[in-house]
């Protein structure tokens, strides 16, 4: 044999890191470094002749005055961005409430009761994943126009037409829920699917009613799935700006994402935009961290 086992093993040992290297390098150069660039711009203290911030690549040059302004303008009630943050929180909250109210029954039925139609229902629930998000919003813009099908249908039952697409919070919240529900249902489906049917049958055999079986068995066992689904949908919802622009387009419904897009792509104050990105990431990281603690606690309980 040409290769001695020892040389062979050494080559193998080097092979796996070598395979992982290009991808790791790519992610460092185009994911980690860009995030550092956000900080370098957010903490920049100098501007160039176009009034644009000069990024401070050296942490020793970081100045926190503009980021401090972003924070105080976000958290004090009279601050310039306070309203936008509050609105983001409220919209995300109500959209999540709608997601739970619609998504839980749908996921439950699909996972546990759909029987032989399960494959079909699952396919139909997954279908929106592969329909472009902008297309799904465009579809609603068609329907919600002043002379669209929704107003025509309302007219049939005698309700006067409503202007849905000009700065209505109601439309934005429902559009967010509509947009993200497919992403909410699937993780929940996976966790409901894993519940052992025998536990539910045992509960029923012991004479427990359907509602109590649900609150004592199904809900606790699907809690982590529910939390996962909420995190998976809340993170992108909180950073969403396109839904809002498409179905409302009014500054009265602006969310944080709209503010970030405005500062980064349409104005010179990129340090403010970068500061908002940083703040949004910190807020979302806080929730992610809490979620990770929850999952770890859950897996520890499961191991016990």
């Amino acid at each position, binding site marked *: 044999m040409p290769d001695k086992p020892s040389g062979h093993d050494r080559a193998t040992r080097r092979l796996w890191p070598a395979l992982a290297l290009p991808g790791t390098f790519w992610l460092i150069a185009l994911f980690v470094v860009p995030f550092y660039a956000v900080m370098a711009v957010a903490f920049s203290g100098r501007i160039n002749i176009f009034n644009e911030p000069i990024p401070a690549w050296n942490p020793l040059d970081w100045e926190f005055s503009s980021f401090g302004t972003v924070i105080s303008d976000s958290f004090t009630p009279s601050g310039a961005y306070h309203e936008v943050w509050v609105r983001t929180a409220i919209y995300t909250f109500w959209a999540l409430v709608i997601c739970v109210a619609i998504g839980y029954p749908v996921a*439950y039925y699909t996972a546990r009761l759909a029987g032989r139609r399960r494959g079909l229902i699952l396919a139909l629930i997954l279908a929106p994943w592969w329909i472009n998000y902008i297309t799904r919003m465009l579809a609603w813009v068609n329907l919600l126009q002043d002379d669209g099908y929704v107003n025509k249908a309302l007219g049939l039952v005698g309700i006067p037409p409503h202007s849905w697409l000009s700065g209505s919070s109601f439309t934005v919240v429902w559009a967010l829920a509509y947009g993200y529900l497919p992403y909410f249902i699937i993780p929940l489906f996976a966790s409901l699917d894993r519940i052992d049917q025998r536990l539910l049958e045992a509960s029923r055999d012991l004479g427990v009613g359907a509602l109590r079986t649900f609150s004592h068995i199904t809900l606790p066992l699907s809690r982590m799935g529910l939390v996962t689904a909420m995190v998976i949908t809340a993170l992108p919802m909180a950073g969403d700006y396109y839904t809002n622009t498409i179905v409302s387009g009014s500054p009265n419904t602006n969310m944080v994402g709209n503010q970030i*897009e405005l500062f980064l*792509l349409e104005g010179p104050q990129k340090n403010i935009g970068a500061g908002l990105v940083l703040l949004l990431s910190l807020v979302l990281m806080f929730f992610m961290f809490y979620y990770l603690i929850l999952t770890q606690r859950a897996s520890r309980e499961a191991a016990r």
Partner: protein
Amino acid sequence: MTVTERPAVAEVSAPIRTRVPPWRNPWRRPYVLATITWVYILWSLVPVLIAIQFSFNDGRSRSTWQGFSRQWYCCNEGSVFEDPSMFHALRNSLILGIATVIVATPLGVALAMGLTRWRSRASAVANGISLVPLVTPEIVVGSALYLVFVNLYHFIPLGRPAMLLGHVTFSVSYVLVIVRSRLLSIGGEYEEAARDLGANSLQAIRTILLPLLMPAVFASAMIVFATSLDDFVVSQFLFGSAENETVPILLYNAVRAAPTPALNALASILLVGSFLALILALVVLRGRRRTGEESALETLADWG
């Protein structure tokens, strides 16, 4: 004899059936949940179907049906294939999608092999980094990439090169997740057997591991293509100037500006593109199902 026995059976079963009110009967059919599920499915898909219907409208309206026509697809003034910006956007999307597949798939497959088989502290860190893009809101990824291209990587201009790098960055993580789940289910035994029979590591990968991974590799390539076609946020931050517009960007910019059914036609073409990619992926994964593994749809659901 049977005639005399039948009433006896009815006597026994009838009282039981009447004693249990329907809401206490655990075996009743779940009509309420079934209704919610089907109403949800209709709500999630019918608007898109109506949007597709209006792409065939014989008139300029997107809310009043005026008869069937193919004029918004081809060969008429203002149709998708005659409107320069729409045709251009379609071409841009297609080129970007294919280029992303070509770069991201090998990168992700190598990364998955490396990270799965290489066990060390460094690989654990690389593992962590590679999954973060999956949970990072797109607006954070998009704005971070935008800031790094504008401020640090000056040699990569905004436009096609920057968009390609951005799309590959979020796609690598998809490939990684899909290929790794397959790698873990294959286990290391086949490569070990190949090496015991005298193959070196590279030969083992090429002749044993890659063929076994092929369905997952192909499926992830198709999913990368579909997600690249559908991406809006990263593209919007990086596209630079109008000649690099992709279909989602064009849809987003045009949807509020009194568009014609040609916009619906463009959205429908995009939809067909990503569904074709998805169906190809499902067909290949279905081949796996015959070998006794879980259904392709449920695999997809698990990746979610």
